[in-house]
């Protein structure tokens, strides 16, 4: 039985310690290198984007700066709104599928494996070490209309949203399984044993204890999967046969094909705004998780 009871101990000690003056701390300036780095190379780049989004295009690769809200108004075209909506829906479906596929695996790894835990973690990560492009093309061979699945089971799903969904789950599964496994791993399994000893049915014990305790981990993992999925564009392009438009494709096309950085920037910023709702949840949950240590 593996258990990591440190958080509990810590809490107990923390209570006793209250009133003492000493607490180990690291100097604040240690955060400076990372802070400076992100401010320069991330906010700097993002600043350009914000400046673009208020500018107007005056020629190929030529824009005039100013303060125009036209680009933002253009985002509210029903066409673009429907693409936003569809992307969020598709990412949501992809995330739910990932959770459904991945949670039991993480649970299995944390609950039933001991010696080969590390091996299982590595096995989850190894697919990430071949290129996603090769992986997706290999998936295409499997899902092909004249391929193994279609011929043997009559499952012809290539170039449908289902194929895109499978591709998303396939490429994002490790990103979900690992954090959830981490959170399950830190759980105190003796609670489950206590509950079953007290004649709780296993399913009930799972629902009341395991699921609740690992919910923050699930939410964190789900958002880590959901957010990049909304910006995805290579996987949908390959597995939908190029006819399933994600916001990612739209932004890419606007910057590159239409050569219209102002509108592309406005689209990107609107996507960030739409996602910020989820980020707020993420931050809240992540902070809560840290506080309770589970």
């Amino acid at each position, binding site marked *: 039985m593996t258990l990591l009871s440190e958080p509990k101990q810590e809490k107990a000690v923390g209570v006793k310690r209250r009133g003492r003056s000493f607490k180990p701390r690291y100097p604040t300036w240690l955060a400076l290198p990372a802070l400076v780095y992100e401010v320069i190379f991330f906010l700097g780049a993002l*600043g*350009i984007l*914000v*400046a673009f989004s*208020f500018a107007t*295009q*005056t*020629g*190929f*690769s*030529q*824009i*005039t*700066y*100013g*303060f125009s809200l036209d680009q933002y108004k253009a985002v509210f075209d029903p*066409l673009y709104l*429907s*693409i936003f909506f*569809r992307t969020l829906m598709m990412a949501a479906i992809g995330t739910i599928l990932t959770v459904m596929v991945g949670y039991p695996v993480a649970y299995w790894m944390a609950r039933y494996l001991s010696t080969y835990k590390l091996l299982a973690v590595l096995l989850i990560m190894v697919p990430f070490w071949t290129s996603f492009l090769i992986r997706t093309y290999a998936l295409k061979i499997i899902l*092909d*209309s*004249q391929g193994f699945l279609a011929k043997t089971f009559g499952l012809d799903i290539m*170039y449908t949203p289902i194929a895109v969904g499978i591709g998303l789950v396939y490429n994002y599964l490790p990103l979900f399984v690992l954090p959830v496994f981490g959170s399950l791993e830190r759980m105190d399994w003796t609670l489950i044993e206590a509950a079953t000893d007290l004649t709780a049915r296993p399913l009930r014990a799972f629902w009341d204890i395991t699921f609740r305790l690992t919910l923050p981990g699930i939410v964190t993992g789900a958002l880590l999967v959901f957010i990049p999925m909304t910006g995805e564009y290579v996987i949908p392009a*390959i597995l939908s*046969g*190029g*006819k*399933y*438009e994600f916001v990612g*494709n*739209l932004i890419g*096309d*606007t*910057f*590159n*094909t*239409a*050569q*219209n*950085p102002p*509108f592309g920037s406005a689209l990107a910023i609107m996507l960030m705004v739409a996602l910020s709702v989820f980020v707020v949840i993420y931050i809240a949950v992540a902070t809560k998780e840290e506080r309770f240590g589970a």
Partner: protein
Amino acid sequence: MNSQSPDDLNILAPIEMKPKMDYLHREVQRAAGSAMSRRKALSLGGLALFAAACGSTSTSTTPTGGASSGPASASPSSSLAGKPVENMLEIFNWSEYDDPSTYKLFAELGPVAAAGTKTHETYYSSNDELLAKLNSGGSTYDLIVPSQNAVAQLIQEGKLMALDQTLLPNLKYLEPSFLKSSYDPTGEFSVIKDFGVTMFYFNNKIVTDDLKTMHDFYMALPKYVSKGRTNLLDGAEELVPLGLMALGLDPNTTSQADFDQVRTFLLSIRSGVTTISADYIQDAIAGKIILGQGWNGDVRRIVQGRKAQGDITAVLPTGSSEVWSDNWCIPLTAPHPVAAHTWINWLLTPTTAVTEMEYHSYPIPIPDALSQLPADMKNDQLFNVPTSYTDGYHYILNVSPQVVQQRTKIYTEFKAS
């Protein structure tokens, strides 16, 4: 950030100034006799910049830097004659677009071998990507291979170097009608690499109609889609102009009425399209596509790949369709322009052109080379497309930002519906 005057903040560079700066940078570099950073060169060339900016009288404005390399000519190209080949050549190209032996033999050319020129290549997968890189201003490429629409745009933006014809004696081998084109009217900025047309193909065991024009092709899509996969070429610059041509309209139209018409037309056949992809060759050879658009070199491969089954009919559309070209160009900022010219000249050698055509299967308009090709190539209409077809075909261009945006919006709507 937005409070200052708009001109100060033109991050993408004041366009009319850029060529001058880049040209100056090169001049100063040359004067100093060695490669140096752009920044260093600009500070060094401060005086020269001043001179270039005020004094339009182009009498010897010798750049600072000590080395008196004679009067800097106003035309960058003419100053290249007699310069030695540089020790580096940086090519920005489509992937797998030139025969490996072409690189090897280039390195063995007299002046190139003497200079020990090292050739390095980076790849892009679309003209958009190429333009994005060049537009950002950070280009250090010596040689690029834009298609006709990108060539026209880059000329308009002043991002290309006027080629030095004295360094390209092999231009004499080129079919004269290809020396100048609608996208490069003076022929100064580009040399054609190869060209092709957009056509379509279908599985004749399934599609039984006699399809002749692009319009026939589009109309057959909804009819046959239930029988198997249909494919259109992707990209706004393909989808919309090809649709316009199917309707008998100008592919480079600026008319809103035309755009409305093509939008309605494309949306009406949308349900007949399974995939929109440029990555169709492998699948078509595997027999997975029953009806699709393609470039003639690719379609030729498909026909050859399905020879055993004999089920592919390739159609060069009568009426209007697309003709495209890929071209050698030298960016104005190229650090190694002499090596780049030497490369272009080498590729214009008939023997090289023969090797190249056998490798990439697209025609290079060099009569001496075409005549040396094996009969199964030069007599194949899919390779050597007769002018009776191409005379009615059009180059697709990036007419204006507005037109490109119209096309992109229709394309987005088409894909999203």
